[in-house]
C-alpha cells in the first residue's frame, strides 16, 4: 500500500525496566488455611514460572482432598463462630483495611503480577492492582448497608463460598470474588489459577496483616482437580467461578441438584462494531485496546471485529499501521504495550487457532516486531477474509488474534453479532447517539461499550448472557449472588 506510515527512526526509546529489587517473595509457598501457613498433607509442590523468561520464581503447594477439607472446615468454623456474628460495620472495617494495605503495597503487587503472569507492568500498575484495591474499597462500603441495598428483602449471608479464579487478571479477579463475599458476610476458600498463584499468596500475607479473623479467607493452591474438590464439598454454600465455558459446564453439572448457588463468568467472543460515521482513529485505538489488551487474554476481548464496508479499507490500513507502532517484549519495561503469553499451554492453543485460520482460507497479518528468544510470545495478529462460519470467528482463542468481517446494514451486523453461543460483551462505534441506543438494546451481551472498550469500574456490574455465564460481579448486582433473601 502506498504512503505507508514508517515507524523506523534513529530515535528509539531506551529500555526503562521497572525495578524488582524491592519485592519480597519466598522460594516456597504453603497453603493458607485458618489464618496460618500449612504444609500440604501430601507434601506435593509445583513450580510457578515467569512466562517471559521461562525461569522458575517459586514452588507452590498443591492442595489435595485433606487440605481442601481442612480449608472448608476452617472457613465453616470462622463463619459459624465469628464472621456471621459480626456487624456489617465491623466487617466493613476489615475490608477497608485490606483495601488500604493493597494500595500501600501496590508497587510490589504489580511487579509480582507482571513477573508471574507475563502481563506488562503498565497494565498491572495502572489497571489490575488499582482496580483490585478499588473493588475492596467499594464493597467495604456496602457491608453495613445491605438492608438498604435490598430494601424489604432481609438479605442474609450464605456460608462458605468456594471461589476459583483465572490466570488472566489474577489479583483483580480475586478482588472481584473476595470483596463482595466478605461484605455480604460469607467466608471464603479461594483457589487461584495454577500458573498465577503468587498475588493470591501475597494477598494472604495482607490478610494476616489486616488481622482478619482466622479462617475467614483461606487460600489453597493447585490445579483443576483441587478446584473440583472445593466445588464438590458438602459444606460449600456457594460456588463462584471465572474461567472457560468448558470448565463452567463441568461445574454446573457437578452442583446440579444441590442447594449451592453459583456465579459463572465464562468465555466470550465479543463483537466490536465500527460504523462508517465513527471517529475512526479512536475506533482503531478501541480495536487495539479491545483485542491486544493483556495479550488478548480477556474474556470480554473484542475478538470479532465488524467494520462497515464503506470504511473497511481505511480502517484496516489505519489498524495495520497502528499495530506496527506497538512495543512487544519485556513485560517489566514501562514502555512495553504487549507482553508474554501466560503459559506454554496457552501459546499452543493460540498457535493452533492461527493454523486453523490459515487452513480455513483467512488471510493473516502479523506485525513485524522481533520477539525475545526465551519465553512464550505471539505477535499481534489479525485475520481478514473471515467468514461467520470460520472457527476463528466462532471459538474463543484467548490470545492476540483478531478476526475481521465486514457488514452493510445495522440489521445484518446485529444478527451476526448475536450469532454466537457467547454473550459477554460488545463494542459499538458511531457518532450517532440513537444508533448506540438501538444497538445496546438489541445486542445480547452483558456489557456494551459505546465509543470505548474494556473500561472497568467497581460500581458497574459485569457478567454474561448464554454460555458466557450467569450472575453479575461488580456493583450492587455483585452482592446479590452472595446473599439469600427471606
Amino acid at each position: 500500500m502506498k504512503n505507508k506510515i514508517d515507524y523506523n527512526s534513529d530515535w528509539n526509546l531506551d529500555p526503562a525496566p521497572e525495578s524488582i529489587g524491592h519485592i519480597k517473595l519466598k522460594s516456597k509457598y504453603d497453603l493458607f488455611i485458618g489464618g496460618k501457613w500449612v504444609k500440604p498433607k501430601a507434601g506435593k509442590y509445583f513450580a510457578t514460572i515467569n512466562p517471559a523468561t521461562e525461569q522458575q520464581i517459586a514452588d507452590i503447594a498443591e492442595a489435595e482432598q485433606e487440605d481442601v477439607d481442612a480449608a472448608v472446615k476452617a472457613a465453616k468454623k470462622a463463619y459459624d463462630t465469628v464472621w456471621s456474628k459480626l456487624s456489617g460495620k465491623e466487617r466493613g472495617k476489615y475490608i477497608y483495611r485490606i483495601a488500604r494495605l493493597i494500595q500501600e503495597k501496590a508497587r510490589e503487587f504489580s511487579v509480582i503480577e507482571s513477573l508471574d503472569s507475563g502481563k506488562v507492568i503498565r497494565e498491572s500498575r495502572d489497571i489490575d492492582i488499582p482496580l483490585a484495591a478499588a473493588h475492596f474499597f467499594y464493597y467495604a462500603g456496602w457491608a453495613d448497608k445491605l438492608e438498604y441495598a435490598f430494601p424489604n428483602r432481609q438479605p442474609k449471608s450464605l456460608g462458605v463460598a468456594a471461589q476459583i479464579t483465572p490466570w488472566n487478571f489474577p489479583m483483580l479477579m480475586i478482588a472481584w470474588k473476595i470483596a463482595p463475599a466478605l461484605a455480604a458476610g460469607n467466608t471464603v476458600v479461594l483457589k487461584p489459577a495454577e500458573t498465577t498463584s503468587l498475588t493470591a499468596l501475597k494477598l494472604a500475607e495482607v490478610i494476616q496483616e489486616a488481622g482478619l479473623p482466622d479462617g475467614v479467607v483461606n487460600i489453597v493452591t493447585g490445579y483443576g482437580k483441587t478446584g473440583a474438590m472445593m466445588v464438590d464439598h458438602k459444606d460449600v454454600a456457594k460456588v463462584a467461578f471465572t474461567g472457560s465455558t468448558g470448565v463452567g459446564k463441568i461445574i454446573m453439572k457437578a452442583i446440579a441438584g444441590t442447594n449451592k448457588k453459583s456465579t459463572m463468568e465464562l468465555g466470550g467472543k465479543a463483537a466490536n462494531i465500527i460504523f462508517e460515521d465513527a471517529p475512526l482513529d479512536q475506533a482503531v485505538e478501541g480495536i487495539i485496546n479491545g483485542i491486544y489488551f493483556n495479550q488478548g487474554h480477556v474474556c470480554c476481548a473484542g475478538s470479532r471485529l465488524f467494520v462497515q464496508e464503506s470504511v473497511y479499507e481505511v480502517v484496516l490500513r489505519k489498524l495495520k499501521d497502528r499495530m506496527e507502532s506497538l512495543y512487544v517484549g519485556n513485560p517489566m519495561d514501562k514502555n512495553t504495550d504487549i507482553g508474554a503469553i501466560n503459559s506454554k499451554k496457552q501459546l499452543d492453543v493460540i498457535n493452533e487457532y492461527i493454523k486453523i485460520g490459515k487452513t480455513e482460507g483467512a488471510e493473516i497479518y502479523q506485525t513485524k516486531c522481533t520477539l525475545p528468544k526465551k519465553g512464550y510470545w505471539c505477535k499481534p495478529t489479525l485475520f481478514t477474509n473471515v467468514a461467520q462460519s470460520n472457527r476463528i470467528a466462532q471459538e474463543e482463542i484467548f490470545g492476540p488474534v483478531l478476526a475481521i468481517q465486514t457488514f452493510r446494514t445495522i440489521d445484518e451486523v446485529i444478527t451476526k453479532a448475536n450469532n454466537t453461543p457467547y454473550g459477554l460483551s460488545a463494542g459499538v462505534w458511531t457518532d450517532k447517539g440513537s444508533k448506540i441506543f438501538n444497538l445496546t438494546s438489541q445486542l445480547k451481551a452483558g456489557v456494551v461499550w459505546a465509543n470505548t472498550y474494556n473500561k472497568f469500574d467497581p460500581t458497574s456490574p459485569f457478567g454474561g448472557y448464554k454460555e458466557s455465564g450467569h450472575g453479575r460481579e461488580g456493583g450492587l448486582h455483585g452482592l446479590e449472588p452472595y446473599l439469600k433473601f427471606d
Partner: protein
Amino acid sequence: MAEKDYRLSPRVDQVGIQDRVDRITKRSVKSEAKRKGLLMTLNMIDLTTLEGADTDFKVKQMCYKAQHLHDSFPDLPTTAAVCVYPNFVKTAINEVKGSKVKVASVATAFPSGHSSSEIKLLDTKIAVDNGAHEVDMVISRGKFHSGEYNFVFDEIAAIKEACGNARLKVILETGELGTFDKVRRASDIAMDAGADFIKTSTGKISPAATLPVTLVMLEAIKDYYYETGKMIGMKPAGGISNSKLALQYLLMVKETLGGKWLSNEWFRFGASSLANDVLMQIMKQESGNYQSKDYFSKD
C-alpha cells in the same frame, strides 16, 4: 473554491483522544533517547517574540540566541527559526545570515485576523519581500464559525500564492474553535487550501497548544498523507515550556506519523522559554547536577 463539504470531515471522540494521550504521556524516555530527543527539540524550536513592545534590539538579541544557544556546550544545534512580526523581518534576516536559522513572520493581521483581504495580502507580501522564509498566517475564525468555509479556504489559498517560495504555516487558533470536530475541520480546510504546516495557536489566548489538540491535528495530517502522499508539517505553539512535555510531543509525532516527521522540516515548537529548560536538562545529563537558571541566557 473548496469542493468538499467540510461539515463531513471525520469526527473526533474526545474521550478516545485523551486515552491515547494518556498512553503516550506514560512512556518513559531515558538515557540516550532522552539526550537525542532534547537535542532534536532544540533544533525544532521557532524561537519567538511577538510582543507590542518588540524592538530591533530585542529581535537582534533573540536572533543571536537562536544561533548560540549555549556556547559553553559544544556542538549544540541552532533553533529551526526565529519568529517575528513582519516589520522585524529585515532585521532578523540580517542577523541570521549565514546560519541555518530561518526567519518566520506572522502575517494576515495577526493575532485576530480581523482585517480586509487586501491588507492581509499586503501584510504577507511585505514579509515575503523582506525575505521571510516562512509565513505564519491566522485563519478567519469568525468566518469559520459562521460556516463560511469557502471564504476561509480561498483566503488561505490566496495567501499561499502570495507566499511564493516561502513556506506557509496556517494557525487555526484551536483555543477559539471550541471542539475537536472543529479543529479537525479547520485542519482539513487548511491542508486542502495549500498549507505547508498547520499550527495550533497564536500564543495570545489560552488554551494554546495541548497534547490532545495536537493529536487531532496529527491524525488529520496522517489522513491527508494517506490520500495524497503529501507530507504536511505540524507546529504546536504556546504553552510548551518544559522538556518533559516537549519529549511527549515528539513521541506523539513518532507514534502517529512515524520517523519521517521527526525533523524541523516537518515539526516545530513555537516557544519562547522552552529552549532554556531543554538546555538545563541537557547540562544535567552531562554533569549530573542541575545548574542555576542564571547560567542560561534569557533573551
